């Protein structure tokens, strides 16, 4: 407390440097882990193709009987399906490592191309839903905790119970019905106005308008989760000894709330947000199906309708990769806000 400004300055710099180093090692470690997980998923995909009823070549080509004999024969040849099992696994793995996820016979395109074309739309949707739900959830949770036991608290808590129990695809349909069909406020279909030919800023505005309903409905369920968690966590932290100390020191209630309680209470919420990333990507399948949002979720629905198994497995792999990216982001956020890290550097 009596240190000179210069001393505080160097200490601050050291702390920041320590934090940066920590984040970099964290990202490196997580990337190594990510590669292992993705390889395991590829192995699992391979096993699934073989566990499925029917000829593996037919499974890869789509529903049995959909592909012609020549294509099936090509598949059998390329994946060495007449070879022993380990050789088949190796052939499959080698293909995926070279970023070859196979060919969608139904769509007449390589699986990876199909997925990459749809990935940006899914990233926009899930990221927006993630930011909305985390912000809204934390704000509402903080408000509910601060007004514990009042009407506001009961209202927010009931709301979260309700959101938590609502089927995602159903609320999406109802939102289309209300805001798009009845009121005509927002588009309930697609990614942009077809044929409008917008470019630049009007195009961004157009996409944003189409994004509102899908992102809000996808975020609703997660808002409920973060709201509950933030509330419970705020209440728990506010009873801890260091908070009493901070109050006893005479700090203003709002400062205690922000600097001491909120910052610590957010940690489990961020951990939870990371764990929920998989659900968010899964939820995108439903949201994109309802809103005809051209992302990988919608692609999954199309693949499902056509029983295009190879495409389904490719989407599973890529969506796991998206989840891993979300996890790394939340880990970095955790490191950034954790008041314990760097304090003893």
């Amino acid at each position, binding site marked *: 407390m009596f240190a000179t400004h210069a001393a505080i300055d160097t200490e601050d710099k050291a702390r920041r440097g320590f934090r940066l180093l920590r984040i970099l090692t964290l990202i490196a470690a997580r990337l190594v882990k990510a590669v292992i997980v993705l390889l395991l998923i590829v192995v699992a995909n391979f096993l699934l193709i073989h566990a499925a009823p029917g000829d593996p070549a037919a499974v890869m080509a789509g529903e049995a009987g959909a592909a012609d004999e020549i294509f099936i024969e090509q598949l059998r040849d390329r994946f060495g399906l007449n070879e022993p099992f380990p050789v088949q696994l190796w052939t499959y793995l080698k293909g995926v490592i070279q970023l070859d996820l196979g060919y969608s016979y139904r769509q007449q395109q390589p699986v990876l191309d199909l997925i990459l074309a749809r990935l940006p739309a899914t990233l926009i949707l899930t990221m927006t839903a993630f930011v909305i739900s985390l912000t809204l959830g934390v704000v509402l949770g903080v408000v509910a905790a601060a007004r514990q036991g009042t009407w506001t608290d009961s209202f927010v808590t009931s709301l979260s*119970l309700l959101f938590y129990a609502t*089927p995602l695809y159903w609320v999406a*349909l109802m939102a289309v019905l209300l805001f798009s069909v009845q009121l005509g406020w927002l588009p309930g279909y697609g990614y942009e106005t077809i044929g409008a030919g917008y470019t630049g800023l009007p195009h961004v505005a157009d996409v944003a308008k189409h994004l509102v309903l899908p992102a809000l409905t996808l975020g609703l369920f997660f808002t409920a989760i973060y709201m509950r968690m933030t509330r419970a966590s705020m209440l728990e932290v506010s009873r801890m000894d260091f908070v009493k100390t901070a109050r006893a020191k005479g700090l203003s209630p709002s400062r205690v709330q922000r600097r001491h309680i909120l910052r610590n209470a957010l940690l489990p919420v961020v951990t939870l947000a990371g764990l929920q990333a998989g659900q968010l990507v899964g939820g995108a399948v439903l949201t994109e199906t309802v809103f005809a949002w051209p992302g990988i979720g919608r692609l999954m629905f199309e693949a499902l309708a056509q029983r295009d198994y190879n495409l389904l497995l490719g989407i599973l792999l890529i969506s796991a990769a998206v989840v891993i990216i979300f996890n790394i982001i939340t880990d970095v956020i955790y490191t950034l806000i954790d008041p314990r890290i760097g304090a003893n550097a």
Partner: protein
Amino acid sequence: MTLAATAPARHPALDFWFRFARNRGAVFGLLVLLVVIAVAVFANVMFPDSPWKMVQRPFLEPFQVEGLPLGTDTLGRNVAAGLAYGARVSLVVGLISTLFSLAIGVPLGAAAGYYGGLVDDILMRITEFFQTIPSFALAIVLVAIFQPSLSSIVAAIAIVSWPPVARLVRAEVMSLKSREFVEAARLAGLSHLHILTRQILPNAMSPIIVMASLMVATAILLESSLSFLGLGDPNIMSWGYMIGAARTVIRNAWWLSFFPGVCILVTVLALNLIGEGLNDALNPRLARKGR
């Protein structure tokens, strides 16, 4: 513990009920769930005809014709009958898939927590692996590849839902295994299996029960989502299927998607409320802390 000191000695079951009943939401949830169970059980009494049978002209609006309070669907089938039979699938799938995920998650978590070390490392890496894969996408792939049927749906839901159980059980076992009663059992020469199943797990039951009740709710949501995408058992009427089939006609026939959704919402909400009540009743100290 002040609770035990002030309350007169009561039968434990009665005591449990009083603590559960103090949560009014939980009692409401229980009542709603009982109604849903009754409808599911007596579906064939209330609606002797198959829910797939066409009974009137298609797209009949609700409250227009006597005997068809919720109207008819795109093929002239009775919506009310579909909802009643749909309750069966939801409850059965919710319950059985939860039992299966407990059957996977409890032994794995218990072994990881009790033995620790390498066993713990390996089992937890497996658990993390399953938590990284987007569970809904995995469930879709599993059901699609093994063909939609009641058993493939139950299996898929169980496979994607066990990791949280394993984590919970592991944490409980880890905190219990160094307690005195466990050490006494060890000194008495009881086998590891005996200690784990007879001494430790019974003491970890409360949080497992609470989690299980919430898992039934999640499983119902999952089943309905799969059915919505057309991955339901093609021979069984379900709420998710009804919404999925009505999706394309939502502009003309709102009731076809609206009512099944309300059924799912109410059932899942009831189960969540019950879960909270169980939490209050089984972990009284925890419950008060959270309030």
